[in-house]
């Protein structure tokens, strides 16, 4: 199986699912589950190669002219994510076979989930940033489809839209960052960009690039202030919440941050941005998780919080911290995945996820309870589970934050362990609250919609499989330390690093902090009711939900309002816009380019009767405007037309004068013919004075502009006219004496052909309008 096939096979299978559904019927899930299993085995086979530091690569040209290549790269970091995607993917698909009713649209479900799996594998294995971006958006897109899987529910559609808007905005920012990186380095290939890290960090683009790329990562990984989409994405079926919204897609942002550490990391700006956003999400997520009643909502906020923890650790940037982050990433996928599967079972078997209705389920659901206890304790960071190990690493890194190359935070260094401690206490409390009351205290109530009983083995096995990883890794961390964690850390830092994860660090500050977490956490849990009452009194938490719910309708309303202002439906308004815009652009250009050069040096002389004619022309034009009777206005227009013909005589243009006389006569006849069937002029008395004022101003300005333009055109001659050619050659080449006619039919005969066509079309149009009209019934009839 080649590397290329690994990334493309989910897409190919997705295309075949509708066909296979016909053959396999409701067993389609088993067919689909074979793929992640195969891919997982393939990835295991690559382990020795990757551990030895040899990456697996594939390179195909795609759009070589702009440097976009289909280039894949498998190093320690990609491999770790590959294991998560295929391993948890397999567990989730098996789980979904038992979870989903056969009445659901299974074809859609498996097509979407395969699309997602392929896209996610593409994101973590692409070596080309544009290729990665394409896969990145494909994960957003397939996540959108999966959240809206039950599209008849309003909340599903809301959640899907929200996650789409937020992650796509982040994705676009990231694309801008990628393009800037390309401008700087001239390549989209990740390794070549990392090789030019020094150049990037020195350039003025460094901070914008970092912000844009991190916007993509934070929005995808649901970090503040973009965390709001994740709780609403819980409307998806539970296997999806488990797979996408806890174990894989939300970690794409972490992958991006880890991958970009080589190119962008290691600066104070990077550390401050990444770690402070991570710590903020850690704190806010663990605090809000306490306030939830829905099990899935608790897990959603817990995911936000745990992702914040991982991002904080990667932001610290020291090899030890990165090791902690990667280890916790691995652990989080295991325990959060198992917890989601547990919640799905509880929901499936009792019909509710409300923790106030669930009591003492351990007696009827012992295996589910085991999953819940182990998963929750691993999340809380209690020994001997794996969460304890990564939490210790987190405390160590926070305590040591000062000693590394982050000395500039010295005065505030105590903040880091303190926030870590507080967030861990909250984490402990909500983790215990997930399983304790639901499974242990009290008797099974009758409040649940279904009578609870143990789930079938198909639902339990994937959960047990994932949760056993927590125990195994907790007891034997060396299993993954050397094989998976170390190559991933080396891939991020780019330097050799020796990973060893201990249980016993000796008596030191991190251990004391762990003890404090457990003791204070237990105390707080036994006073949970008082704690919740106290939290309820805290005035409304600052939430970007409120901003989101305000902004989306506000943008729509704003657009509608702007459209309503300009698209009035009145022809007059549109004409006015065009006129004002022309005045602004043409007048503005004249003003800005200092083009107002008027020379009076070369003017023709004026005779008295010419002045009289001009006055008649002006009077005619004003008559058209001001005369109340339409007959008078038409006659006035005729006066203008005939005077223009007379002017053509004066200006030595006999052909123009002839044509103008003829055309004016025919036009007048037409006007009279048509106007006799038209109503009287509308009275413009009811037009408001303000509107009339605007009209007058616009008209006067247009007149002034026309005058100015004519004068400028007359005054500025940049080159000699070409008319001497026509005058010399009219006889010689055209064989005529009338230069105008020779130009019309000989030198520029094409214009004349065009104008004949115009007249012909106008005639046909007039005929069609008069003769053929369509009545309301749709039947053409002849007009009288």
């Amino acid at each position, binding site marked *: 199986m080649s590397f290329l096939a690994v990334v493309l096979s989910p897409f190919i299978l997705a295309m075949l699912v509708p066909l296979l559904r016909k053959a396999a019927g409701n067993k389609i899930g088993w067919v689909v589950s074979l793929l992640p299993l195969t891919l997982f085995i393939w990835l295991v086979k690559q382990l020795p190669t990757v551990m030895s530091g040899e990456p697996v690569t594939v390179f195909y040209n795609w759009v070589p002219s702009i440097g976009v290549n289909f280039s894949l790269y498998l190093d320690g970091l990609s491999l770790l994510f590959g294991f998560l995607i295929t391993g948890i993917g397999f567990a989730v698909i098996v789980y979904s076979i038992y979870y989903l009713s056969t009445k659901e649209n299974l074809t859609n479900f498996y097509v979407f989930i395969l699309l997602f799996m392929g896209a996610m594998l593409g994101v973590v294995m692409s070596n080309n940033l544009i290729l990665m971006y394409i896969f990145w958006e494909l994960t957003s897109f397939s996540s959108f489809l999966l959240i809206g899987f039950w599209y008849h529910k309003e909340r599903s559609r809301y959640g899907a839209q929200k996650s789409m808007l937020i992650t796509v905005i982040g994705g676009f920012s990231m694309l801008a960052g990628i393009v800037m990186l390309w401008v700087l380095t001239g390549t989209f290939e990740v390794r070549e960009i990392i090789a030019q890290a020094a150049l990037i960090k020195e350039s003025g683009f460094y901070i914008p690039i970092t912000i844009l790329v991190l916007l993509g990562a934070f929005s995808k990984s649901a970090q503040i202030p973009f965390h709001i989409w994740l709780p609403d994405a819980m409307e998806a079926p539970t296997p999806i919440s488990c797979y996408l919204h806890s174990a894989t897609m939300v970690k794409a942002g972490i992958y991006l941050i880890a991958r970009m550490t080589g190119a962008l990391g290691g600066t104070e700006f990077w550390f401050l941005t990444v770690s402070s956003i991570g710590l903020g999400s850690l704190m806010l997520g663990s605090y809000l998780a306490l306030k939830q009643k829905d099990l899935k909502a608790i897990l959603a906020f817990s995911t936000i919080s745990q992702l914040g923890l991982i991002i904080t650790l990667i932001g610290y940037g020291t090899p030890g911290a990165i090791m902690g982050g990667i280890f916790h990433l691995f652990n989080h996928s295991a325990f959060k995945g198992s917890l989601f599967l547990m919640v799905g079972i509880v929901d499936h078997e009792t019909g509710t996820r409300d923790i106030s209705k669930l009591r003492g389920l351990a007696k009827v659901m012992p295996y589910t309870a085991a999953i819940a206890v182990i998963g929750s304790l691993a999340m809380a960071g209690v020994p001997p589970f794996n969460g304890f190990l990564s939490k210790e690493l987190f405390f160590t890194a926070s305590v040591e934050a000062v000693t590394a190359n982050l000395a500039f935070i010295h005065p505030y260094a105590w903040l880091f362990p303190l926030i870590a401690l507080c967030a861990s206490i909250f984490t402990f409390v909500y983790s215990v609250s997930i399983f304790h009351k639901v499974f242990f205290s009290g008797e099974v109530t009758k409040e649940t919609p279904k009578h609870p009983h143990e789930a079938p083995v198909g639902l339990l096995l994937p959960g047990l499989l994932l949760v056993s990883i927590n125990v195994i890794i907790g007891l034997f961390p060396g299993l993954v330390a050397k094989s998976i964690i170390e190559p991933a850390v080396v891939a991020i830092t780019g330097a050799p690093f020796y990973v060893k994860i201990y249980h016993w660090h000796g008596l030191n500050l991190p251990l004391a902090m762990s003890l404090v977490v457990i003791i204070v956490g237990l105390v707080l849990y036994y006073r949970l009711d008082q704690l919740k009452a106290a939290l309820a009194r805290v005035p409304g938490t600052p939430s970007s939900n409120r901003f989101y719910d305000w902004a989306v309708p506000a943008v729509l309303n704003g657009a509608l309002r702007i459209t309503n202002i300009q698209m009035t439906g*009145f*022809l*007059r308004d549109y004409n006015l816009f065009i*006129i004002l815009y022309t005045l602004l652009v043409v007048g503005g250009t004249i003003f800005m380019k200092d083009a107002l050069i008027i020379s*009076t040096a070369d003017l*023709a*002389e004026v005779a008295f009767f*010419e002045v009289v004619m*001009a006055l008649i*022309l*002006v009077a005619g*034009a*004003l008559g*058209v*405007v001001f005369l109340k009777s339409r007959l008078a206005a038409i006659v006035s227009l005729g006066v203008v*037309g005939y005077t*223009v013909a007379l*002017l*053509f005589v004066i*200006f*030595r*243009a*006999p*052909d*123009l004068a002839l044509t103008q006389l003829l*055309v004016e006569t*025919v*036009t007048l006849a037409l*006007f009279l013919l*048509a106007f006799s*069937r*038209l109503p009287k002029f*509308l009275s*413009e008395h009811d037009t408001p004075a303000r509107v009339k004022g605007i009209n007058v101003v616009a*008209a006067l300005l*247009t*007149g002034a502009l*026309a*005058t100015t*333009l*004519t*004068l400028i*055109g*007359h005054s500025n001659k940049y080159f000699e*006219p070409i*008319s001497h050619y*026509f*005058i010399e050659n*009219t006889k010689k080449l055209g064989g005529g*004496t009338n*230069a*105008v006619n020779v130009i*019309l039919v000989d030198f*520029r005969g094409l214009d004349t052909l065009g*104008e004949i066509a*115009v007249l012909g079309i*106008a*005639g046909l149009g*007039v005929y069609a*309008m008069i003769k053929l009209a369509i009545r309301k019934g749709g039947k053409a009839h002849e007009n009288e």
Partner: protein
Amino acid sequence: MELMMSLVIGVLFAAGTYLLLSRSMLRVILGTALLSHGVLLMILTMGKLKRGAPPIIIGAGPFTDPLPQALILTAIVIGFGVTSFVLVLAYRAYQTLKTDDLDKLRGVDDE
């Protein structure tokens, strides 16, 4: 002469624009007719006026520039075609819709 013509052209443009902004369909058509007169004179004035004999090439020059005249001739004919078409269009619109008030011709409300 050119100065005076520029002023006349300005008046024609102003009158045409004012009519273009009115409510009555007929006045809008009259406005376009005035505007096209203004444009014809503008083309002619931007060249030079009254420099030499009409461009009938008999005898020695100087002759006036024949090219703007050819352009204007084309423009007159096209203007005539368009005006007559628009006029009949207005007539048909009035016949069908029983109004020539442009404020009432505002498309369909329930789109």
